[in-house]
């Protein structure tokens, strides 16, 4: 190996458009010819050619992944700005208020592309990355979440769906468990749409004292930059560029693959939080996509100041790294701490106490320019604003004409069979084979976990609840919503349904929804039809959240989830957090007593598009059930009142598989049966039992509280039966349409898990 040269010059002056594009390709920059022309004109002004470090830095900053260049215009219009007054702060994650002193920081993000190439490492580093985002706000992570979308078909040239699934689950397990933050919520969806484009959407929730919220902006000169945590290596170079293009075959991408090191992260979290607690940090940001290049640029630009960095001071894994590689490496487990001079020693001492490597690498200086040196030689000198202002695209879009055909299913002959096939469907049945590999009780603060009820026969819960502070009675509820099947039929209604489900789940735990994080998954934005879907989806999200007056405080966009002619539907995963005022009044879905009245809050629907019932019948299209945010708000918030005043014994929202599935699930953790009569619901029995109406719940009301409950819910509730010792029986008037014993329900829901 020869000594690394500091940098080489990249000749762009006097180059034609085509030649520039050639340069972009040969250096794996992923920039368009227009963008290359912008670089050229900038350096014409500077009267010199750029260095390799400079073009690489710009390419990172301008990648789709870092710059949101295809989505920003739409996000601004539809996602940002809702319920601003409820947002405490925004940065790598967003914050809402839990109580007078405490804010909740949370974010959901995709790690789709890395997981498609290397499922284990991709998923693991996804968790690692989202934890850093929460830590960047100065917050203590309290929960990890994962919404996973697995394919069901083997695609030539890609690993089998089983290999991908096992790898992803193991990656989340090994990272989350080792780092010691409970993984408490998420979802797993199976569909052939996700072959081979697996989606891994990971979330993290944390809490922070409002006075200790960290910012990432540096706005004064003389602030010292310290890199802490993992060493910098060749791993993860050009990861963001990979996530900003259509996927090829995996083996070329070796330099982007990382496995992560949770036991480096674990003490790093302690150390950074200790430094924050002691008031020693000025600003803070994590190193993710784009590495040092993005972080330093953004921290300086946010405060409108210049800076200098000495690259040889960055602790390296491999001595032979070139300066540009050091500058853009995406090696895991690193944080950048900005610290006042007088606190540098205290901070490095804390790092040392936790056995963490740290090093002073530079400082902020007067001006607008960032200068990078390598052993005294200048290798980069750019106006930060230029780097952080990429070209934004309003890409052409078309809206596919959707001819809504609603097929009327044949009236079923065997309702029990229908229920059994719903309960044992891969998308409904228990996810314990995965989730029980996740430590969901570490930190001793999990009040409601993913499964609840009698020990040894727990059923599903809707939202998890964490008590962040052992000295307080308040809790943070965490839940998800997403429905790629609805979104495929109608991206607008699919977006609304994702919000609806998130809110339903939070309400079910007795929590008031406070905020959302949106993780948007899509295909190639350069395809007008996909861009059209993308905008419809964001409109759907907007219309719901705006009407509920609940903000999106953070989120993430993942385009280019397609391979050959296979692509995913355009759909969001929504992560929601809510507030439980008093954890001892939070509620779970398992029935609590015998002889209690069961109410349906909501109305079954004839819209079956995308429903499990339709999918079982192999019917496509149809009308997707409509979520009316005003109705959601009315029912949801009235339910909160009913829960608060102690009327509700158990509650479970209606989702995949409809009313029949929901009631069945309530019997699992309780070993208590139910008797239902669907005649008051009017519709055909199959519609009543298996349609998936939005904004709907089944509620078990305590004896003697029925009147109070109906007062709260008004016309939104109707009695559909009562709990009983054993069996689930459904009647329509005199006619018995379904009888199933509790053991069969349990067995079918637990199918595939032993």
């Amino acid at each position, binding site marked *: 190996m020869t000594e690394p040269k500091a940098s080489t010059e990249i000749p762009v002056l006097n180059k034609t458009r085509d030649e520039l594009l050639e340069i972009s390709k040969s250096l794996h920059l992923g920039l368009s010819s227009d963008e290359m022309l912008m670089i050229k004109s900038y350096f014409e002004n500077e009267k010199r050619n750029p260095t390799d470090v400079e073009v690489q830095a710009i390419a990172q900053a301008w990648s789709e992944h870092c710059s949101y260049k295809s989505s920003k215009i739409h996000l601004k219009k539809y996602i940002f700005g809702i319920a601003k007054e409820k947002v405490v702060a925004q940065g790598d994650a967003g914050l809402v208020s839990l109580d007078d002193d405490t804010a909740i920081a949370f974010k959901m993000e995709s790690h789709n592309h890395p997981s498609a*190439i*290397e*499922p*284990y*490492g991709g998923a693991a580093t996804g968790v690692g990355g989202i934890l850093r985002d929460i830590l960047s706000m100065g917050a203590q992570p309290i929960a990890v979440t994962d919404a996973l979308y697995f394919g069901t078909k083997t695609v030539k040239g890609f*690993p*089998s769906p089983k*290999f991908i699934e096992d*790898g992803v689950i193991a990656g989340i397990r090994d990272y989350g468990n080792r780092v010691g933050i409970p993984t408490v919520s998420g979802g797993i969806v199976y569909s052939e749409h996700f072959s081979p484009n697996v989606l891994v959407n990971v979330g993290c929730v944390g809490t922070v004292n409002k006075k200790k919220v960290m910012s990432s902006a540096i706005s004064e000169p003389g602030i010292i930059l310290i890199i802490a945590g993992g060493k910098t*290596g*060749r*791993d993860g170079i050009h990861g963001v560029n990979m996530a900003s293009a259509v996927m090829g075959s*995996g*083996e070329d*991408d*070796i*330099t982007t*693959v*990382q*496995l*992560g*090191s949770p*036991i480096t992260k674990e003490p790093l979290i302690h150390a950074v939080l200790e430094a924050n607690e002691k008031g020693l940090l000025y600003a803070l940001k994590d190193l993710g996509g784009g590495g040092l290049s993005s972080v330093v640029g953004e921290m300086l630009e946010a405060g409108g100041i210049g800076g200098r960095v000495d690259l040889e001071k960055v602790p390296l*894994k491999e001595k032979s790294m070139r300066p540009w590689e050091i500058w853009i490496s995406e090696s895991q487990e690193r944080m950048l701490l900005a610290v006042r001079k007088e606190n540098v020693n205290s901070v490095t001492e804390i790092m040392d106490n936790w056995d963490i490597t740290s090093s002073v690498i530079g400082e902020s200086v007067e001006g607008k320019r960032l200068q990078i040196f390598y052993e005294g030689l200048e290798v980069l000198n750019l106006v930060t604003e230029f780097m952080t202002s990429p070209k934004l695209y309003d890409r052409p879009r078309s809206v596919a004409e959707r001819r809504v055909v609603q097929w009327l299913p044949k009236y079923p002959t065997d309702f029990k069979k229908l229920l059994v096939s719903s309960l044992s469907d891969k998308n409904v049945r228990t996810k314990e084979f995965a989730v029980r590999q996740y430590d969901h009780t570490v930190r001793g603060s999990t009040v409601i976990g993913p499964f609840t009820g009698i020990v040894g026969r727990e059923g599903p819960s809707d939202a998890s609840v964490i008590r962040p502070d052992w000295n307080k009675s308040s809790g943070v509820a965490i839940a998800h919503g997403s429905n790629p099947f609805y979104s495929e039929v109608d991206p607008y209604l699919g977006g609304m349904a994702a919000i609806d489900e998130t809110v339903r789940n939070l309400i079910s735990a007795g929590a008031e929804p406070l905020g959302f994080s949106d993780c948007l998954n899509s295909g190639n934005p350069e395809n007008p039809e996909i861009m059209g879907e993308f905008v419809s989806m964001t409109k759907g999200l907007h219309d719901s959240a705006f009407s509920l007056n609940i903000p999106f405080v953070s989120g993430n966009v993942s385009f280019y989830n397609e391979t050959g002619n296979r692509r995913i539907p355009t759909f969001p995963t929504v992560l929601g957090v809510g507030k439980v005022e008093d954890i001892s009044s939070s509620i779970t879905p398992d029935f609590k007593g015998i002889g209690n009245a069961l109410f349906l809050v909501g109305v079954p629907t004839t819209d079956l598009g995308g429903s499990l019932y339709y999918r079982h019948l192999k019917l496509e299209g149809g009308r997707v059930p409509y979520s009316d945010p005003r109705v959601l708000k009315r029912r949801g918030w009235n339910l909160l009142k009913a829960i608060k005043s102690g009327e509700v014994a158990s509650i479970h929202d209606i989702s995949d598989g409809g009313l029949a599935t929901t009631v069945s699930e309530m019997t699992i953790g309780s070993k208590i049966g139910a008797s239902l009569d669907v005649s008051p619901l009017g519709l055909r029995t199959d519609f009543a039992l298996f349609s998936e109406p939005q904004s709907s719940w089944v509620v078990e009301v305590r004896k003697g509280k029925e009147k109070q409950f109906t007062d709260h819910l008004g016309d939104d509730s109707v009695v559909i039966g009562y709990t009983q010792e054993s069996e689930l029986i459904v009647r329509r008037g005199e006619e018995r349409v379904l009888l199933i014993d509790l053991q069969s329900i349990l067995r079918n829901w637990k199918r595939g898990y032993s």
Partner: protein
Amino acid sequence: MVVLRITVTLKKAVEDSEGSSVLKALRLLGYDNVREVRSGKVYFITLTKGSKKAGKEFCEKLLANPVINECVVDD
């Protein structure tokens, strides 16, 4: 009857946390002469009939991901 020994390791370019952690531990135990540790998994697979070729298939189908792993079959 053959017994295959299949060794699955990480490619050189991929960071090996287990290896690093063992290295650190051995150094702390006072072994300054340890320079590097790489870790891996090993499977001893007994076949009623078949050969090394079968081992290659096991690597591809189950035991390794070619993106990050090397898989060596000995018999």
